[in-house]
């Protein structure tokens, strides 16, 4: 009589690439934090700008790539973040830096009733519905003269703070927000919540039959994404100091996000980081070409989604199994 022996195994989270990346990442963080003391103002403002794109794109990626909710209206919450920064800092006298997370919280709060409307639609209809909501926000703010109406307004509440200090704190805030946002997404996906999300993405029906409250998970993702978008918006206008409804609520934010995520790789965490860097490079050197640059972006997006639907990082990751931010669990059988 033989006993059934269980095969010993370990569940691995990290990959070799991720260990290397973790070390490199730590070094990068040290480098980044110290930038204000050895870098230029332009460099700092560029990092802040990339951070906004990166955070916004990561949130879009969380929503679409992991949550399966393709939205083309996230700019609504970005704009809300920007405008509520102004409302808190300018109209209510709250410290501008504290106003950033506050504004994001307001954006997240507003996303809850918004979800009641847009979740009544599916797929492509959901996408356009989110755009309608963003337009509603834009039109409301364009009609409120106290906030400058259609032509916008300027943030003067920081006039008292010396420019160097303001830029430094804004810069560190940007870093903190990026780390927070990416960390949030990463932590989320490693958790049981992340498993639920992936299950829903793969098959809603199957997930539901496993006891996952699909509606609740989708709402949580939507609210989180709105919070992140609000952070990106508040941060952007903290640096920019001048806001107008047409830019704050512009669908171009989503267009750029889609581009960033596509090029990088949808449904991965590394993807948007790679995409944001690439996008910023393209932006910096090619945006002088105005319309032709945008036409080029549009063509690139079309070609990439048809030929490489996983994006650049996604394709590489799929081929070689690279994961810098490992969210999967690998079963490894222990050798005797």
């Amino acid at each position, binding site marked *: 009589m033989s006993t059934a022996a269980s095969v010993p195994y370990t569940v691995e989270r990290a990959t070799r690439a991720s260990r290397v990346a973790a070390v490199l990442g730590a070094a990068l963080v040290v480098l980044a934090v110290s930038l204000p003391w050895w870098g230029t103002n332009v460099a700092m403002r560029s990092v802040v700008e990339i951070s906004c794109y990166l955070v916004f794109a990561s949130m879009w990626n969380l929503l679409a790539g992991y949550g399966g909710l393709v939205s083309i209206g996230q700019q609504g919450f970005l704009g809300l973040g920007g405008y509520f920064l102004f409302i808190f800092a300018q109209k209510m006298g709250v410290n501008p830096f504290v106003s950033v997370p506050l504004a994001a919280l307001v954006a997240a709060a507003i996303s809850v009733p918004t979800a009641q409307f847009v979740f*009544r639609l599916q797929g*492509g209809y959901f*996408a356009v519905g989110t755009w309608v909501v963003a337009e509603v926000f834009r039109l409301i703010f364009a009609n409120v003269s106290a906030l400058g109406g259609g032509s916008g307004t300027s943030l003067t509440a920081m006039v008292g703070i010396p420019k160097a200090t303001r830029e430094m704190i804004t810069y560190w805030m940007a870093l903190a927000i990026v780390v927070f946002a990416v960390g949030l997404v990463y932590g989320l996906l490693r958790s049981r919540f992340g498993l639920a999300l992936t299950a829903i993405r793969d098959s809603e029906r199957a997930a539901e039959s496993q006891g996952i409250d699909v509606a609740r998970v989708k709402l949580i993702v939507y609210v989180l994404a709105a919070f992140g978008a609000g952070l990106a918006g508040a941060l952007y206008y903290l640096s920019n100091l001048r806001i107008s409804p047409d830019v704050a609520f512009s669908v171009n934010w989503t267009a750029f996000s889609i581009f960033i995520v596509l090029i990088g790789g949808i449904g991965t965490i590394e993807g948007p980081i790679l995409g944001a860097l690439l996008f910023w490079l393209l932006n910096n050197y090619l945006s002088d070409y105005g319309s032709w640059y*945008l036409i080029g972006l*549009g063509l690139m997006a079309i070609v990439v989604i*048809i030929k490489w639907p996983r994006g650049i990082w996604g394709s590489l990751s799929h081929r070689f199994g690279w994961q810098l931010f490992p969210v999967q669990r690998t079963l490894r059988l222990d050798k005797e």
Partner: protein
Amino acid sequence: MLNWIDTILQGIILGGLYALFALGQSLILGVMRLTNVAHGDFIILGSFAGYALISGIPGTPLTGLGLNPVITMLILLPIAASFGYGLQRGVLNGTLGADPMPSLVVTFGLSIIIQNLLLELFSADPRSISALGVETKSLALGENIHIGILPLIIFVLALAATALMEWLFHRTDLGRAFRATADDIDTVRLMGVNHRHVYALATAIAFALIGLAGMLQGLRTVIQPADGPGLLLYAFEAVIIGGLGSFWGTFAGGVLLGVAQSIGFRFDPGWGILIGHVVFLVMLMIRPSGFFPKTR
């Protein structure tokens, strides 16, 4: 009181145009469930194409044919239909499937390309297609109510187009093929239907409607390259309010939208479009399947 009647009447007439914007999208949504984010941009492309056919492209040797709008329309419609056929077979057929991402991204990319291409060719200056004086004529209903002749023509065309689409969809062999393909693509292939061709035919018809709508938009108001997304939202809202799968529903949705906007404009010029969106969202809450939902 009369002012209100006038406002509502103008709204109904405006709604006819919105219905025309929406018909093409209703057809494509109904046959292949494709959401074309560039729908409004294609309408504006149609407007500029009509403009260019008449007045040429500024800054280039192309001077246009200088024909009247009606003839130009007759030239534009077949071009638009062929373009739609080619676009569907060449690009969009490959994006269809359960995942909405590819079609959304591709049409989004097209939207950006069209807007910027038009910007490069025509600059951001508002342009308009001359209606040869018709735009100033109006019909008087009683003492205080006047309806512009051009908007009235547009409304009648919208009615005719809707009736034509209903007839096509429900009383012709092609319409039957559309409905069957939308129902069950595998089985319809077993009947010998080439689904790629059928989809492309649907898009061809939709683009003929888009070309018509674009031309009329250029006649009735000024057009600019960035106008597209706004028109997409009107079309989309009209379709959802009316109920997917019904052309008369789309028409009703367009009219409701037009009336809502017209009433909103009366209160404040800035509120018109906003009220339209709000009415859409309210309809979404209270009657999510629309006025005339077709059960599948």
